[in-house]
């Protein structure tokens, strides 16, 4: 950390951003362009990580980390792969009805682990596809635009409603739609906006209304917030959409917007860190970030301490839990556009106290200092692509607003927002 401690805030975040971005290049397959879910040996690709990668190539061009031609070539490789991939109900297809399986083999692009055809991960992928389609606007980049447009238009969002008002979280060829629905506010805002904006197979307007019926407006730890426990749920959709000043009916009723709501959620996470109700090591106003991520799992649990139970990769949340003392080291930095001072104070404190959480300038997925381990606590091995992509995008939005500006010019997303009832601000 010594060197990082001495550099300016701007230099620090650019360095961390570049390192985060480089994951998306270092762990991409040469043939398919697919990006690995994690840096671990044998990891398949996560389509969500590919969506982040597509969104980050323009960032790399703007920062001079990739030439435009290189970024366009990488982008086109991915778009061609998805365009030509097997779309069928075969159990090892890449996708179906324009959606894609959550995890794909890096080299063949086939479904792995009998995973689900994932609605939210397809949305994250498609958001990246649309960013690419908007950004690469030169005459020689026509194929990118046309392929991106075709990929978006073929997603059959209406099919995914399965005749119901709301949305399931996915589908499997073996068993049909999953029982899991979208309950309560979370990262699905992007999914609904993309589904509502489709000119071909749009969601019915009732879908968004049905989801919002499950919203919980709460006064929590002294603040009003549209509740969602894991921090990432307040960030993912915001990586693409600038929610400042635009409001749907719910936020008009509450006199707030989703950007302000994320600020409130961050404040609650900090407050929770300070209260530290379960006495976890290191928690404070500058040590927070309880969210989805890797964790130590039950193996580490001491058998007699039933009040301490540790989890593996899971979605942790505040204040209802689950919370096992594991934070995501990247999470504080990812809040930069919303709470700059808090993000920097927390990140600097973390890097100073536990520099091991940021090997090669990339943050690990999970860290738990309450557990004893060689790394001053339990530390997740390697890196996760989602974390790196989100950090790179959020830093760029904080520094230049690049992704937000690109998305503001995406007609489909503008339409989706309007169909969801958003008004005001840049709309």
């Amino acid at each position, binding site marked *: 950390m010594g060197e990082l401690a001495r550099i300016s805030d701007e230099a620090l975040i650019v360095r961390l951003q570049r390192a985060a971005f480089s994951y998306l290049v270092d762990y991409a397959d040469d043939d398919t362009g697919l990006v690995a879910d994690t840096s671990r040996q044998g990891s398949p690709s996560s389509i969500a990580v590919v969506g982040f990668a597509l969104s980050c190539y323009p960032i790399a061009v703007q920062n001079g980390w990739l030439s435009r031609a290189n970024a366009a070539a990488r982008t086109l490789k991915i778009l061609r792969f998805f365009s030509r991939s097997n779309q069928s109900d075969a159990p090892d297809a890449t996708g179906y009805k324009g959606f894609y399986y959550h995890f794909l083999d890096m080299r063949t692009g086939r479904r792995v682990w009998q995973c689900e055809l994932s609605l939210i991960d397809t949305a994250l992928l498609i958001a990246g596809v649309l960013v690419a389609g908007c950004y690469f606007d030169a005459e020689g980049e026509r194929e990118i635009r046309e392929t991106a447009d075709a990929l978006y238009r073929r997603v059959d969002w209406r099919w995914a409603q399965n005749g119901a008002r709301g949305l399931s979280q996915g589908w499997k060829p073996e068993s049909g739609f999953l029982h899991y629905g979208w309950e309560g506010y979370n990262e699905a805002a992007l999914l609904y906006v993309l589904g509502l904006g489709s000119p071909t197979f749009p969601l019915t307007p009732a879908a968004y209304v049905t989801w919002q019926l499950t919203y919980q*407006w*709460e006064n929590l730890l002294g603040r009003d917030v549209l509740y969602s426990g894991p921090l990432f749920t307040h960030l993912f959709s915001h990586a693409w959409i600038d929610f400042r000043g635009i409001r749907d009916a719910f936020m008009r009723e509450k006199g707030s917007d989703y950007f302000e709501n994320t600020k409130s959620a961050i404040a609650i996470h900090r407050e929770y860190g300070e209260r530290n109700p379960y006495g976890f090591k290191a928690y404070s106003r500058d040590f927070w970030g309880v969210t989805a991520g890797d964790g130590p799992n039950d193996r580490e649990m001491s058998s007699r301490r039933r009040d301490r139970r540790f989890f593996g990769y899971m979605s942790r949340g505040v204040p*209802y839990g689950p919370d096992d003392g594991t934070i995501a080291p990247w999470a504080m930095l990812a809040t930069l556009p919303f709470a700059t001072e808090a993000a920097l104070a927390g990140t600097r404190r973390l890097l100073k106290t536990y520099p091991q959480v940021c090997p090669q300038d990339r943050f690990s997925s999970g860290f738990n200092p309450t557990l004893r381990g060689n790394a001053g606590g339990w530390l997740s091995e390697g890196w996760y692509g989602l974390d790196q992509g989100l950090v790179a995008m959020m830093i760029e939005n904080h520094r230049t607003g690049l992704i937000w500006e690109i998305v503001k010019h995406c007609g489909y997303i503008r339409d989706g927002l309007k169909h969801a009832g958003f008004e005001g601000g840049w709309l």
Partner: protein
Amino acid sequence: MQNGTAREKSDDEQAYLSRVRPQDWENPEPRSSYDLAVVGAGPAGLAAAESAARLGFSVVLVERNRVGGNSLNVGSVPSKAIIGAARVHGAMPDAEAFGARVPNEPALEFDKVMARMRRIRMRISEHHSVHELAALGIDVFFGSARFDSTHALLVGDSRLHFKKALIATGARPRAPDIAGLDQTGYRTSATIFEMTSLPKRLAVIGGGPLGCELAQAFCRLGSHVTIVQNDAKFLPREERDAAEILSRSLARDGVEIRLNTTVVGARRDRGAKTLQIVNSGMESEIQADEVLLSIGRVPNVEELGLETAGVDFDADQGIRVDDFLRSTNPDVYAAGDVCLELKFTNAAQSSACMAVQNALMKMQQRKSGSTIPWCTYCDPEIAHIGLHVWEARQQSIPIKSFTVMMHDVDRSITDGRNTGFVKIHVAEGSDRILGATIVASRASELINEMAVVMNTGIGMRALAAVVHTYPAQSEAIVLAAQAYKRFDEAAQMEVRRAGSE
């Protein structure tokens, strides 16, 4: 010679049976007509018969099995007795944190757990014994009742004429639709308390209140418990945060959780019971020594001659009643599980008293006007009253929840019982309380304060000023109200500031 436990069982059972179904009971000679005939002597039937008798009306009460209904015999009372024992056993691994030293493997004597349950049931049966009912002037008939006209019932050879009748026949465990389960054998709430030994492996089908309560209880007593729920969460009626806390609590205790999982078949394998399950298309199996089926309850509407009485009913929904609990026969009412969606003892008793008032006192009490709290008795307990947030939003009522975490409540911290929360749901723009959800070690007690508050129309401002004992878990309720008050005062100050500018 009988050993101690067997003798206790025998003595307690005899005392209990003498109160709920005396062997030597002879049905009385019927009167020419009764003001009220009550069919079923569960919580609703007992409440109705006793309140009518105390008002001076002639009452006949017919029961085909045991007085007390499910609640006393195979429901709330025995399950809470078992849960009480399980809490003690479940607390042992935590005792070290309190400075207590416990043996590595605390021994359990299951027969003593069950003997305690029977003793408790025997003691509580005294409250509504057959002899107590007779002493109130109620004619008690044992036997199956069947309407043979719009104003008469047949019980054996006796014809009971009535001016008004109340059907309170309750509900029974829903029968399974699982191939092979009948042949494999299973228990329900009606038979689980007859077990004489603790099953090494218990499979629970159904993640509703009873399934969750008993899954946790038997796990704490030492069974390896697997619970299978055909839904994404337990307790589908409850809000997500509460259900997730319960899920983690079950997992922490060691219950093996299979959500989103359907049991598609069952068979016997060399003495063990095997359940075939499917999760997202993936098939697997669970082995168990006992299977508890807890997939809901269906109303007891069969063989009552309801058609003859002109009483409309549905096999799944029960007797159709209006808001005054009156059936399609204007002189026949219904109460409790046989007609209500909320199948709880307190709802049964409340509806029965209401029906008696409406039937005999010509009152117009509406079931929609009552606010019924309920609780699932897991650890932590999960209690609710009034509207859920999603119900308010469906009705386009702007709603805001004021939440206090139990880990911020001093008494919860001192007791080491700091899991859960108090949420009070308030109509925005007012201090009107629409509902509350409480997850806490004694949520069943805390929710009653909210019942008083809601039934008397106390708002958040007044609640914030009520002085409570300190320290107490109920401080969470006051803290939530005080949070409301702070926001309300800040909003008013904002309005004043805007007006002065």
